[in-house]
């Protein structure tokens, strides 16, 4: 059954499925099929009659492969659904499982995902819940009890128009997204209402991930300029605050522009700022 299905999808796609290993860090387009490493041996050119002996026989037993954003499972293979670069991460901690494959794509429209930390704007207050606009197809609901130290008598001080930093607990295509401002232990850990002043602006989702990468130079350089505070939401929203309005605006402009600048241009701008 799976073989019959595989043949039809191949004929539809028009080209042979390629090995995921060879396509790492290359551009993939929607509709391409990728073979996982264990399947190459059976379907490679010399594999029909012979099974080459391998020293690392452990690869025969498949670990759990996770297909991340931009990929879907089709039978035993991965089907690409977004265009971008294919990435792979080896599993840490003993190598259990086959690692994670995903497509590094760029988009501006956010789709709520469970576990993501986002910045939302409170748009309505109805009874026990707040309606928070997170940039998705519908506003997320936030219960007033989902704050640290909130009880039925002790309500949190949230008004319409406030900025909220929270995470999703329910986010799928069939239900209204729900978010909370506490973690699983009941502590706020930085979530909740974001303070006064500051500036909220929107960027692409890819830039947020680039800035939040562990070795991001942009943030290190920005941090040396002057005292400031930034909050990144995975829904493409960034909130910045500095001591004066001018500094806040400079910061917002840098973050928006750094997506399209090369490293040299960036360094020039930072050196100019440091002088002034």
């Amino acid at each position: 059954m799976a073989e019959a299905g595989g043949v039809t999808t191949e004929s539809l796609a028009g080209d042979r499925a390629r090995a995921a290993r060879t396509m790492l860090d290359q551009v993939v387009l929607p509709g391409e099929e990728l073979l996982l490493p264990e399947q190459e041996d059976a379907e490679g050119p010399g594999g029909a009659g012979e099974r080459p002996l391998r020293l690392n026989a452990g690869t025969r037993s498949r670990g759990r492969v996770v297909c991340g954003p931009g990929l879907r499972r089709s039978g035993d293979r991965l089907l690409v659904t977004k265009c971008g670069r294919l990435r792979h991460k080896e599993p840490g901690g003993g190598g259990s499982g086959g690692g994670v494959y995903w497509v590094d794509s760029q988009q501006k429209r956010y789709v709520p995902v469970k576990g993501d930390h986002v910045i939302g704007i409170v748009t309505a207050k109805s009874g026990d819940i707040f309606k928070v606009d997170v940039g998705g197809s519908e506003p997320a609901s936030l219960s007033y009890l989902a704050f640290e130290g909130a009880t039925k008598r002790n309500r949190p001080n949230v008004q319409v128009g406030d900025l909220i930093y929270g995470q999703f607990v329910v986010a799928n295509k069939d239900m209204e997204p729900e978010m909370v401002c506490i973690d699983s232990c009941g502590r706020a850990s930085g979530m909740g209402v974001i303070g006064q002043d500051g500036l909220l602006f929107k960027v692409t989702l890819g830039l947020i991930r680039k800035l939040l990468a562990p070795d991001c130079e942009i943030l290190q350089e920005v941090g040396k300029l002057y005292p400031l505070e930034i909050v990144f939401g995975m829904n493409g929203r960034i909130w910045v605050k500095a001591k004066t309005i001018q500094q806040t605006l400079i910061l917002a402009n840098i973050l928006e522009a750094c997506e399209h600048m090369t490293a040299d241009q960036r360094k020039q701008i930072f050196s100019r700022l440091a002088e002034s």
Partner: protein
Amino acid sequence: MAAERKTKLSKNLLRMKFMQRGLDSETKKQLEEEEKKIISEEHWYLDLPELKEKECFITEEQSFLLCEDLLYGRMSFRGFNPEVEKLMLQMNAKNKVEEVEDEAVELDVSDEEMARRYETLVGTIGKKFAKKRDRASYEEDENGHIKPTVKVKKMFLKPQD
């Protein structure tokens, strides 16, 4: 007239409990089997060959948290918001296991010192609540620490006969 022709009783009537008390166990069993056949024939089922679902090793996740190690979203630089800076250290340290050792050393007061303080505290506070008679029995050490004295509780002495 009634004895010549047996009145024809309906099937449902014959199936009722009071009519079956007179029957033998064999006829009862036959009746039960017939009933079960009727019921099972009425059940719908799919006439397909048995499909075995292949064990699949691929799971789908839509979240980027698994893919990339991202830092915590709230950041503060050069002391603008001290609480957020503390939070940054905490949250980013969760990703790295090496940081755990540093945290243990950073305690303000070590456990040994706490134990020592508590030992002497008992005596000092106890002195506050002691009555005048007991205060005389409190002795002081060289360092000024109160030596806790063991108080003998005065119990009721039963008079001997």
